[in-house]
């Protein structure tokens, strides 16, 4: 059932121009950044050879590319997710799902899986850019795998937050704005709090504050480190916002 709903979400997403516009422009931005860095790398290469143990192309070109994906997702996910529930409410189609023999959990997870699949498509297409480098060179596959895992978790985290925002209102644009504010707020709050606390030498509260900031948790993946604490933080955020969404949907039945 979850996959049926996810399939429906993907189908309606691709039936609207939004999905195509987002795909086109994210690829344009990412490709531009990628080529620019590649160009810089080619110019730097003669100097790099003289350095002992120089950083490779994966570190200098591919890792920044994935950081750009993270930033692009921060803007794209609220736009893609705003339709998920808010638009169904506005078009009065939510009844279709609620009247079907489905639990709210299935509805929420179905929509979540649908959105994450679309986001993974963006990540997948973007990954083709570094893979093209294999034509003339070598890649650090360990680092690449770490980057892919990290950005996938990050995308899922953004999706969960934006899905929650989407069930708070019947206005898609308001949902997008709420999602964007939530994400940005979490990033800033987590970051600032973690820095401040660490500055005073409070390591444990600092680590706790880090839970809030999805981008902070993405950092270790960018260095090729699969950090179990960062993974736990991201999973915790995903689970929290999914549970909030399910509870909110259930409450809508009671409130009317």
């Amino acid at each position, binding site marked *: *059932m979850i996959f*049926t709903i996810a399939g429906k979400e993907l*189908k309606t997403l691709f039936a609207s121009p939004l999905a195509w516009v987002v795909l086109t422009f994210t690829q344009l931005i990412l490709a531009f950044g990628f080529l620019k860095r590649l160009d810089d790398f080619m110019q730097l290469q003669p100097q790099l050879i003289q350095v002992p143990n120089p950083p490779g192309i994966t570190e200098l070109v591919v890792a920044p590319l994935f950081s750009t994906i993270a930033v692009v997702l921060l803007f794209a996910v609220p736009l893609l997710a705003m339709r998920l529930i808010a638009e169904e409410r506005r*078009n009065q189609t939510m009844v*279709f799902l609620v009247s079907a*023999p489905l*639990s709210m959990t299935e509805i929420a997870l179905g929509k979540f899986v649908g959105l994450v699949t679309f986001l993974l498509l963006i990540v997948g297409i973007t990954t083709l850019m570094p893979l093209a480098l294999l034509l003339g060179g070598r890649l650090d596959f360990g680092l690449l795998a770490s980057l892919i895992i990290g950005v996938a978790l990050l995308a899922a985290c953004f999706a969960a937050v934006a899905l929650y925002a989407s069930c708070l209102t019947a206005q898609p644009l308001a949902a997008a704005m709420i999602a964007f504010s939530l994400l940005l707020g979490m990033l800033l709050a987590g970051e600032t709090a973690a820095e401040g606390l660490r500055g005073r030498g409070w390591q444990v509260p600092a680590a706790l504050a880090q839970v809030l900031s999805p981008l902070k948790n993405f950092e270790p993946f960018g260095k090729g480190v699969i950090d179990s604490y960062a993974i736990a933080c991201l999973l915790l955020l995903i689970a929290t916002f999914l549970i909030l969404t399910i509870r909110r949907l259930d409450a809508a*039945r*009671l409130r*009317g």
Partner: protein
Amino acid sequence: MAKIMTDQAAEITVSAQGLSRRFGAHTAVDNVSLELKRGEILGFLGPNGAGKTTTMQMLTGNLAPSSGAISICGVDLFERPTAAKARIGYLPETPPLYRELTVREYVDLAARLHRVVKSARTAAVDDVLARCGLTAVAKQLIGTLSKGYQQRVGLAQAVVHRPDVVILDEPTIGLDPNQIREIRGLIRELGANHSVILSTHILPEVESVCDRVQILHHGCTVFSDSIAGLKQFHGGRMVLLGLRHPPAVSELAAISGVARAEAASETVFRLSFANGSDPTDELVRRAGRESWGLYQLAPAQSSLEDVFVHLTQKEDQS
């Protein structure tokens, strides 16, 4: 076989006891109960804002009642919501259509979500498309269809999984007369093997389609009986009498067998007959003898309307 048939005919498909729903201080539905047997069509009647839609939302699990119990074919809607919902097909007031899907994709999605097994799905979808007259537009996007066709798609979505209970909220609103006739035909067809609850404020619709009628007003049930009972309640037949040179209304009312007479216009009178009497012959004779200039004698179409006005206004006064 006959035994099984009668058992099925008596099977209770919907049972709702003491449903109430409050929105803050406002009580939208107050202690409404209803019961429906297989093969019955129940007309849910009431003015706008009477609580029809709220009741239907509760019956389909879209809205939790403040108090009361609902069971669908013996399955409690609150204890086992998915099992109960699997037996319901619901067409809300605004059909919940995804405009960007084709008719076929959408009806297929409805079948999937209602857990129609894969092997039977194509046949079920084909069948319902044919029954609702949608085969020709199966590949069109729902957004490009006319309102009448969209309403049919909404109906198809509600019955594709062959539910025991079909709940339709004002299914003919906004349609032209031909489309209304078609949809009514479909509903009557549905009534043969499903239980149907139909909400409307169009009176002839209830008369032509339903077996039983329940009238809501201000969230309360003010009447619940069969169609025949409804007419009986009103007290016999009514006729419209057109006279070119009419006598005084009191003279008409004095004719034996006439319970009540009132002037609908200068030359048209509405007469209701007392129970069991038929003064038509007497009327015609008097009209001829006293040169009233009889030009019209027709059964009054608005009998249900009168009952309705009578019931709901009585409620307002008390």
